[in-house]
């Protein structure tokens, strides 16, 4: 086996950024524009070459632009499901249709995009409810792999790609599980759980340390055998690739933050079920949280019934930046309702909308390209007939990468088809 000199051509891993194909220009006129970068106003959004070319109350409509009349409607940035399995899983119970969980514990070199199925029926279903892009996250093991930021439209993954190695999923070890019902002690006891925890953290440290040495050796020109895992972890170790760091319990979140800070990583907490218990501490530390579904049960029988409903509002009030995510695929379309559920329990509505559009883009380092309606941003937009978080609201138009995206999907087709079924005959019972 010959060692190869590794180049620091990390860009290769990152894959090329999306190349806008559409040359078509659009002008969305007459609607109330919620830019998420300022107050809403009635005006025009001009889209050109996949990007927002101009936005304002008195923007001139280019002569070649196709006019989209949004009078009486609302224009919002497209929604961002900040962690999903879209494209990786089709039918939950049919294991061969599930590509989100690879074997093994440490798989930093694997990338969700490799297995994202652009023709998945889930993608148009989510899209029709205003979800324009997502971070598709692999699962399973300590380091499940790289999450891919994709738009929910495209003939191929290349057309869907925004950043295929946008974040590294890491599942932070929990010390929980020591106590079973009825009693502690034995193998399942606290001491054993703590020992396992320390060993796992040491293992994670070792992976980062190995990646750093690999990096240093490569930088010094030393010949080392190419190691795909070390290359991927090196991007994390350098702080180049953010970590989506899964932790839910209060202690786990705290330990995860301390660990990631000690390791100088860029990271976002994913899950954050008990984050409300340490909201001020998280705000102080400047930690962002991608929240697991708001419509979740409390963490224990004595916890408030609305623990999960109130969690986002408490974090927001403390100054923690939050984003919503479904962590699913068939339910990705419910993203707006997960955000809405937090509103009557303390999260301001505007903050809820920001948490499904702008916040996650900023957390992951894409704030300059996604999440608001501002000139120069990727043109991912939705047009609605009302509040985008309200169930009864219909999404009436959608733009992804500056193209008009179809709202059709499997469900609409089946509905239309069976709605048109002639009255059943021959069963005169």
């Amino acid at each position, binding site marked *: 086996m010959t060692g190869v000199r590794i180049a620091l051509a990390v860009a290769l891993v990152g894959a090329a950024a999306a190349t806008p194909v559409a040359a078509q220009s659009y002008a969305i006129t007459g609607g109330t524009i919620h830019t998420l970068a300022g107050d809403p106003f009635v005006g025009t959004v001009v889209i050109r070459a996949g990007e927002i070319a101009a936005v304002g109350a008195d923007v001139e409509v280019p002569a070649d632009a196709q006019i989209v009349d949004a009078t009486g409607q609302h224009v919002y940035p497209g929604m961002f499901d900040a962690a999903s399995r879209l494209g990786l899983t089709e039918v*939950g119970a049919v294991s061969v249709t599930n590509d989100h969980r690879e074997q093994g514990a440490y798989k930093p070199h694997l990338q969700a995009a490799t297995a994202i199925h652009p023709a998945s029926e889930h993608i148009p279903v989510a899209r029709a409810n205003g979800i324009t892009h997502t971070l598709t996250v692999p699962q399973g093991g300590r380091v499940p792999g790289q999450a891919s930021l994709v738009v929910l439209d495209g003939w191929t993954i290349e057309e869907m790609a925004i950043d295929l190695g946008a974040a590294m999923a890491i599942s932070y070890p929990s010390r929980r599980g020591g106590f079973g019902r009825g009693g502690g002690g034995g193998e399942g006891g606290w001491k054993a759980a703590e020992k396992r925890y320390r060993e796992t953290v040491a293992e994670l440290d070792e992976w980062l340390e190995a990646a750093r040495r690999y990096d240093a050796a490569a930088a010094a020109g030393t010949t080392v055998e190419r190691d795909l895992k070390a290359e991927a972890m090196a991007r994390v170790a350098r702080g180049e690739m953010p970590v989506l760091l899964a932790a839910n319990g209060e202690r786990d979140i705290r330990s995860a933050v301390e660990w990631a800070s000690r390791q100088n990583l860029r990271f976002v907490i994913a899950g954050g079920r008990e984050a409300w218990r340490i909201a001020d501490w998280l705000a102080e530390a400047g930690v962002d949280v991608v929240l697991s579904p708001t419509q979740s049960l409390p963490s224990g029988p004595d916890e408030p019934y609305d623990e999960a409903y109130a969690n986002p509002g408490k974090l927001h009030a403390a100054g923690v930046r939050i984003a919503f995510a479904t962590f699913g695929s068939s339910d990705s379309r419910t993203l707006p309702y997960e955000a809405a559920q937090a509103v009557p329990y303390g999260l301001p509505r505007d903050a809820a909308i920001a948490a499904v559009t702008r916040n996650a883009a900023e957390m992951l380092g894409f704030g300059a390209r996604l999440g608001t309606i501002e000139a120069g941003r990727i043109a991912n937009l939705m047009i609605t007939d009302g509040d985008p978080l309200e169930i009864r609201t219909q999404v009436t138009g959608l733009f992804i990468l500056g193209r008009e995206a179809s709202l059709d999907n499997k469900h609409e087709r089946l*509905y239309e088809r069976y709605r048109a079924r002639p009255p059943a005959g021959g069963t005169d019972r």
Partner: protein
Amino acid sequence: MQLQSRPQAIAIAAALVAALTPSSLAAQPQPTRPEGPRLLAIQGARVVTVSGATLEGATVVIDDGIIVAVGAGVSPPPGAWIVDGTGRTVYPGLFDAFTTLGHGRAGGVAPTRWSSDQEHNRHSWGPEDRPGTTPWLSGAESIDAGDDRFERWREAGFTTVVSAPHAGLVPGRASVLNLGSFERPREMVVAASVAMRVNLRDSSRVYRGFPGSAMGVFAYLKQLYYDAAHYHSAWADYDADPLGKRRPEWDRALEPIRTQLVEGWPALFPASSRSDIGRALATTGEMGVRPIIYGAQEAYAGAELLADAGVAALVDLDWPKPPKDDDPERRPTLAELRRYDRAPTTPAALAEAGVPFAFYTGGLSGPGEALAAVRRAVAQGLSEEIAVEALTLAPAEIFGVADQLGSIEEGKIANLVVTSGGLLDEDSRIEIVVVDGELFEEEEEDGGAEDGEEEADSSAVGDLDDGAGADEAEGDAEEAADPDSDAPPVPMSANTGPYRDDPVTLIRGATVLIASHGTLADTDILLRDGIIVEIGGGLSAPSDAVVVEAAGKYVTPGIVDAHSHLAALSINEGTLNNSAMVTIEDVLRPEDIGLYRALAGGVTTINILHGSANPIGGGNSVIKLRWGADADDLRIGARKGIKFALGENTTRDRDPDRYPATRMGVQDVIRQSFLDARAYMEEWEAFEEGDRRGVSPRRDLRLEAMAEILRGERWVHAHCYRADEILQLLRLAEEFGFRIRTLQHVLEGYRIADEIAAHGAGGSTFSDWWAYKIEAYEAIPHNAALMAERGVLVSINSDSGEEIRHLNQEAAKAIRWGGMGEEEALRLVTLNPAKQFGIDDRVGSIEIGKDADLVVWEGHPLSVYAKTLRTYVDGKLYFDIEMDRERQAAIEAEKAALIEKHMGERP
């Protein structure tokens, strides 16, 4: 402390004994004891007779193992061995009311496994296989004389134990044993059969298969005892006149139970909490036996149930305590903390309520801990006198041996314990133990004495699951992604019940969505004694009314969930393809915190269904969310129902293979079950219309449930997904002349909505779940609207402890997908499900005369932003968003105090 087993004062004749022992293995047995007079007197002691007055300076005379005289003026007979009792106290020997001594030693093999004629690890395909049922075994048989626990128990002052085999569901008979000479086990037996032991869980795993759930166990126990009663009448009939009759089958398992029923021995039945006790009383009532409750640690909350039923309790002395090696940051639940705090109050509560009770060592790590544990109960208000009784006379009375044991009276067996002080005094020592007149005296401690510690045989007694995850061990849970998943029930709550119970409430000025006939602005609703009595504008408040100002708020009927798995100990009895004999009704868990969480989402009525693991599941239970009431008070009185299931969940691979594996087989199982039911009905009809002479047909709970369907007394609620399987079921029902009442999930109902409507089945579906399995891959969120458009009575259900909390939102999805009108959408979760369960005369809409089940909302209830402010069930305020905050604060405060008290030494 070490006691040495010796014959009467054998030290005196030690030389003689030494000369006689040992004998070689092959030698003919020679006497090992001196043949002196069998007379013994304990002289000048304080004698606590328990049955009568305590005597000072009294003498107890024993002749040949029997107490022949007790009293202050009694003189020892000539020739008696004399024990100086000066300064000592004599008690009746201690009685451990429930053990496995001589059987199933810790780390050993369960007694049933020794029995060569019992097949073990056998798969049970129904009650007829008599799973884990070995009633022919008893504590008196096959006593393992080498069980070192006998001696350790006697060292701790116990002269008598009740011992029973422990493995399986009906492990065998309990026997009363005296802890005399273990080398002669036959002499130990006082009574061979005093009770039949019942377990609700097969901790020793002596069988596989049915019953695989808590409700399966209850159904099995009922069937077993019905069978035994039938067996008895069949044999009685045959024995009376065998000529011309076919001989009944002999059944080893039923023989001893037949005897039990005839002789009236009680059943030892596990129960701890109030709802356990309720279930135990109901089940043993069906079984036709009198229960003795064991475990009983949380009986402080159910003492009056026991008192009213005249049922005795055996209390496990191993008081709950915090786990060792525990996570220092773990937040214990209030229920757990209250167990630590309140379990030791149970004996006082039982005494107060007049419940006969006795103690047993249970999960204690050794018998030497028993008296300390009793002292904890005394510290919680139990009188010392009753405590002593619970260790002596009470168990003797409970087991019907009080004419022989339990007190110091002339004629009773000479079982005594002689202590240096009061039995429950901390510094008191046990100095002499007398069993059957045989004296065992304390030897001076030599410093190296064992402390009697051993691993607790926790499997032996008290193994009624505490509720959480009763079925966890069984492999019939559905896929995690499946909404039908058999997830363990959420934990129980420590404090339940309504916030307020006002007889009259006036809700004033709300926008009222009445569900049946539109929306009323600025309207008042008057609730009286649980009923809606007036609806209108500007109602005047009766003087006794609590007025709730609701201007700007919305009021809807309480939400009805047509498909829930809350508040049940178990969900699936998936071991059989037809488990119609089981029912959720047997395993209701009213304290489930899930009910409170549902109330906080405006839900007031739910239909609790069996799971979908088999084509024919079990009975359902339609309940009002009267959180924390007794199980019997939850039911709304809907017609009985049963869960059927089609498709993937029923055909999925199982170990061992369980028929069916295809939709063809599912249909076959259902059809054959109805044919069997018809035959069963005919058999009974023939008997009842005939001369009714001879023996009735066997009562079969499974076939009875099936027959009820055919007679229209029980409704079928069928889990289904694909259009083709739905159509097949409708046609099969039509073949047997009944209607499917509701199709549950019915995700492809939109494909055959006309056929469903023509059949007359209701459809209860999810709002927008899809693709979690292949049969859900064609599901569409327009299903509810499309079925309704075609004339199907449609509801939207949760099938989930989370989804149930926002069914109002789920209803709104039928507006978003399918364009349903607002009122019709609201009916999806109120009036329509009420109609589906035939309870729309009581619930589902806001109408005069209906139950006062109401929800006050902030925001329009079909908005995603709607918030439940108040939920009323029967006019009682079960949820209130303000009072919830107070409740939460109270829980936190109580927990903090209890953690300090019971877990104070946590790091």
